């Protein structure tokens, strides 16, 4: 009789352990998905800021039509690239970053523009959005690291293997331009 109780006890403990580990794996995997979605939120914010920036800048920078057009085109490309896969999207975003930093380098030649209140407010927004993009990528990688640790470490790796939890992919900056965070410098 005692043996039966012991067996029941062991089975219950095993089941509880299984359920707990499974749930925490699900939680971590959802965390990774959510962190990825956050990157998109910030990228979209950058897209939304650009028309504003163009509106403020174009009156001052009549002789920089090419630079301005490059930014607008890069933005349109980046918007089309949404949902076409990680590789294509990050390439388009890198193009946008490059075009933006070229524009902002040219701003140096326009002291009137640098004194414009609207432009100063946009400067803060752009700086912060670039930061938010890199922080959301950073948090995505932190979440993936956590999730991967759980799927690889004993004993949770057994349950991860049984229920088909695969290791997550790190966000790696592949384009050389993207690796260097765009310097949004107006001063």
């Amino acid at each position, binding site marked *: 009789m005692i043996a039966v109780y012991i067996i029941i006890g062991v089975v219950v403990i095993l089941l509880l352990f299984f359920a707990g580990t499974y749930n925490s794996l699900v939680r971590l995997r959802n*965390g990774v998905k959510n962190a990825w979605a956050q990157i998109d939120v910030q990228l979209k914010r950058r897209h939304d800021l650009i028309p504003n920036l163009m509106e403020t800048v174009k009156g001052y920078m009549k002789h920089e039509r090419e630079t301005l057009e490059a930014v607008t085109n890069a933005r349109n490309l980046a918007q089309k690239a949404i949902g076409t896969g990680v590789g294509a999207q990050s390439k388009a975003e890198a193009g946008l970053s490059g075009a933006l930093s070229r524009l902002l380098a040219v701003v140096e030649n326009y002291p009137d523009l640098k004194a414009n209140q609207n432009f100063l407010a946009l400067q803060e927004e752009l*700086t912060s959005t670039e930061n938010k993009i890199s*922080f*959301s990528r950073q*948090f995505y990688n932190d979440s993936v690291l956590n999730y991967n640790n759980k799927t690889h470490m004993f004993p949770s790796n057994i349950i991860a293997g049984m229920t088909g939890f695969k290791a997550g992919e790190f966000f790696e900056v592949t384009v050389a331009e993207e690796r260097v965070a765009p310097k949004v410098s107006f001063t």
Partner: protein
Amino acid sequence: MWEQIRSNRIRSVILVVAMAALLLLIGYFLGVAFMDNGIGGLLIAFAIWAVMNLIAFFQGDSILLAISRARKIKRDDYPRLYNIVEEMKIASGLEKMPDIYIIDDTALNAFATGRDPKRASIAVTSGLLQKLTRDELQGVVGHEISHIKNRDVLLMALCSVLLGTIVILAWYVTRLLFFGSLFGGRRSSSSGGGQAQLIILAGGIVLMILAPIIAQFIYFAISRKREYLADASSALYTRYPEGLASALEKIAGSTTQLKSANQASAPMYIINPFRKKGRAATDLTSTHPPISERIRILRSMAGGASFADYDNAFRNVHQGGRGIISASAVASTGTIGLRAAEPEAVQGEPEIGKVERSREVSDLMWRLNNYKTITCDCGTKLKVPPNIKKPSVKCPHCSRINKL
């Protein structure tokens, strides 16, 4: 990081339980001494503690913000501060954006409050906004966000309530005992077992004297460890420990004291608001680790921004010995690189800061020349020269008559 939070939680729970046991012991003794019923006293102590806890849990953050005279701000009021808090919210993966408060004070300080990460607030002084660069402010906000993320805020609130209850009870009991024995008003003196009574009484007196001190040590132990962990997390979130280091340097260098802080709210701030000028707070009774040491640890994080790097730096500064971060947390973080400084090094919230600063200076100049300042109902500040003879003065803006 998550490992670290869990291992910290277990240790904190042990310390909190120890403090609670101390409180119940006092209650029991209180019961034995005054009601001939230990359990009754125990229940009373528990009830007092529970009521105070409920208040702290549901009203603690609003009480703290009110006594600090903090006002809530919106995104448009201080766009840069708002953005920095949002950046750190993203980096830490906090679910909800905390409320942001400003304390109008030239002192440099900041704190976080709120019972859980979903209902949290961050308060900074206006002096901090004016004096720090973007990177430095980011470091400070990262430190405060990690207090929220690690649930330090709730823990410290519970601990300070426990500590407060213990101190108050012990204080009253020693007074009661003293007068009780002085006037011989103890009922049990007629009953038997006098010797046992005496032993309990003596033990009780020792307990009453020691309990507040022990409780305080436990409290400081919890709070100091939390400060180190928050520094490490800030470096991890910002990937730029130099930001927090140079912010701490500026904060330590400032001699202005925060007017609205008190003993109860002191541990909540990023540095102790009551530190004396030029005194290194190295003693055990400080709620915060010495600031120079925190700066040195952050500055020695040469290799990267992970917990492992912070732990190594901590060990270097302390010349070997145990690290501050649990081994499992160090093992679970990979290599994490540092980032470069922000290109701009502009201080202050762009427009607002400059205006406020020049106002402050001009007000000071007026006061130095013995001018009286009267604030009219329309908001204009009237500067009245010291040699004026008239009983009243007309406001140049709205023509109201202001009495002198």
